[in-house]
């Protein structure tokens, strides 16, 4: 289900990337393509390999096989240069820095990132109501998340890797964060990879989607193409009607009496034609919201 992205320049690419932890496969023959300037949502269930993939991009985890390119650099060879160009919000809390007050933590990052913008950091801190005198270890999950976001954004990197960025945030804070993120994107035009299993939370900023299942990238496409190709079709037919026998790209099929509903990856006109040719009447064709699309792709056993 890869979209044709010929001619597109990519901020991140992986080729046949593989990583195992003991007997468990974390990443399996993964070919990721994140176009420059895109907001790429990496969706998948817990343990699907999303966080591992982001860590590989930062060279925090070494892949067992395959190639990686981030902003034209190989993280395995130029790890420091790659990390300097990335704003990263990790999934978990900070380790080793719990004793630091928030203000000191931000100053610490300012030293490490020569492109750090102190005014922007101060503005973000104010907007996210960050109190610099509080110790990191005393912050709640949501408060720690806000601090991590400031460290990720304040050096205005060309690539953001956000691992569950809204995790722990209340609805108001989530809205605030997404608003800031949108502003940041409009200002910088940077590329964003957001890893999440709560797709609806980031739906408003997403323009590309990758779906990971058990370490495999089962779908990768632009939001526009997803909207155009993935539809639900509700049709009715005579008694005993089972629908078109040659309908390809079916991800889901449900029958209720004489009515059948399919979720199909394919060209709408062609799908409708086949249903009609088989004797059915199409009652409704609908797009799927992003989170439902992800759910369908994750549940689907046989992807086209």
């Amino acid at each position, binding site marked *: 289900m890869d979209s044709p992205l010929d001619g597109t320049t990519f901020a991140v690419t992986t080729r046949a990337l593989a990583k195992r932890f003991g007997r468990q496969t974390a990443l399996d023959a993964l070919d990721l393509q994140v176009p420059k300037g895109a907001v790429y949502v990496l969706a998948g269930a817990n343990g699907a390999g999303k966080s591992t993939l982001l860590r590989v991009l930062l*060279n925090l985890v070494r892949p067992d096989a395959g190639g990686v390119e981030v902003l034209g650099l190989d993280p395995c060879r130029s790890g420091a240069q790659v990390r300097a160009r990335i704003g990263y919000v*990790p999934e978990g809390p900070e380790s080793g820095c719990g004793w630091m007050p928030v203000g000191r933590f931000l100053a610490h990052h300012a030293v490490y990132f020569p492109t750090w913008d102190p005014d922007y950091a101060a503005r973000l801190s104010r907007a996210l109501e960050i109190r610099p005198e509080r110790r990191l270890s005393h912050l709640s999950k949501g408060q720690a998340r806000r601090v991590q976001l400031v460290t990720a954004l304040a050096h205005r990197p060309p690539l953001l890797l956000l691992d569950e960025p809204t995790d722990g945030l209340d609805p108001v804070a989530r809205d605030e964060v997404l608003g800031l993120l949108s502003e940041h994107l409009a200002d910088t035009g940077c590329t964003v990879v957001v890893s999440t299993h709560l797709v609806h939370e980031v739906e408003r900023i997403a323009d590309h989607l990758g779906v990971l299942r058990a370490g495999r990238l089962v779908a990768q496409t632009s939001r526009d193409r997803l909207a155009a190709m993935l539809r639900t079709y509700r049709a009715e037919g005579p008694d005993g009607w089972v629908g078109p026998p040659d309908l390809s790209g079916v991800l889901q099929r449900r029958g209720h009496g004489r009515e059948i509903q399919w979720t199909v990856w394919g060209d709408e006109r062609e799908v409708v034609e086949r249903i009609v040719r088989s004797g059915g009447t199409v009652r409704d064709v609908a797009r799927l919201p992003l989170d439902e699309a992800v759910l369908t792709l994750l549940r689907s056993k046989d992807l086209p």
Partner: protein
Amino acid sequence: MTAPATPSFGAVFAEQLRVVGLKLRPELLAAALALGFVTVLFLRAGRFIAAEPETDGLIVLAAFFFSFAVWRGERLFGDGRFWMLPVDRVRHALIRVAAGWAWLMGVGAVTVLWLVMLALVTGGMLAGEETGVLIAASGPQRPLPEGLPTLPPLIQPWQWLAPFGGATALYLLGSAFALGLRHPLRWTVGLFMGLVAFMALVPANVVTDLIQAGAGGPLSLETALTGTRGGHDNETGMVAATFDALLEGSTDLGRWALATLAWVAMGSVALAAAAWRHRER
């Protein structure tokens, strides 16, 4: 002009100096309290001796575990924040070790100066009396006469540097443990228990021989820490015509330098191997 993508070595080192200093505040406070306690004790009791052989063990322990404090709380075998920063991982680890070492030397210098001042203020001595006896005009094989005078402290100016060299070696070894092992404390306790078990199992004379070889050998840790020939056997074995000759005989700058070099080299190799475990690839 565009800013460089990665920070300079100087900026990272200065930041690590600050971070390590701030992080070690509890330990530094504890050391200051201990010094204060010793000061009060000897101001009341009088006659403090600045450099006693017993302090060697303390230096070894303090330097070794100082490295553990430098890395306390860091998730080194995982995606700790330390590794997420834009510095080559091996270089970053070595910079942190260097920053910790600078603090160790600073704390050591302040401690030594304080103890020397305490010795001077309390009318004590800079070193203990046990370092030698003067047997004027005695032949090498003659029996020791009764009522030998005890010598004033035998300590050369360069010997004040000796604990710093020894502490450096132990700090490097400790850093190798802290950086290269997932459970450094468990390994340390395990090795200690293993040593104790070994000493309990082998015959006593073998243990004595091993201890003498280790403590009194030319490359022994004691030589590196004190600059003496080791073994504290000067009282019975040293025979010299003059005090100066005895002083010359009991200490050896070359031997100390060699022992220190050997231990620092060993620590450096261990540290390099530990840091290499965290290389970029």
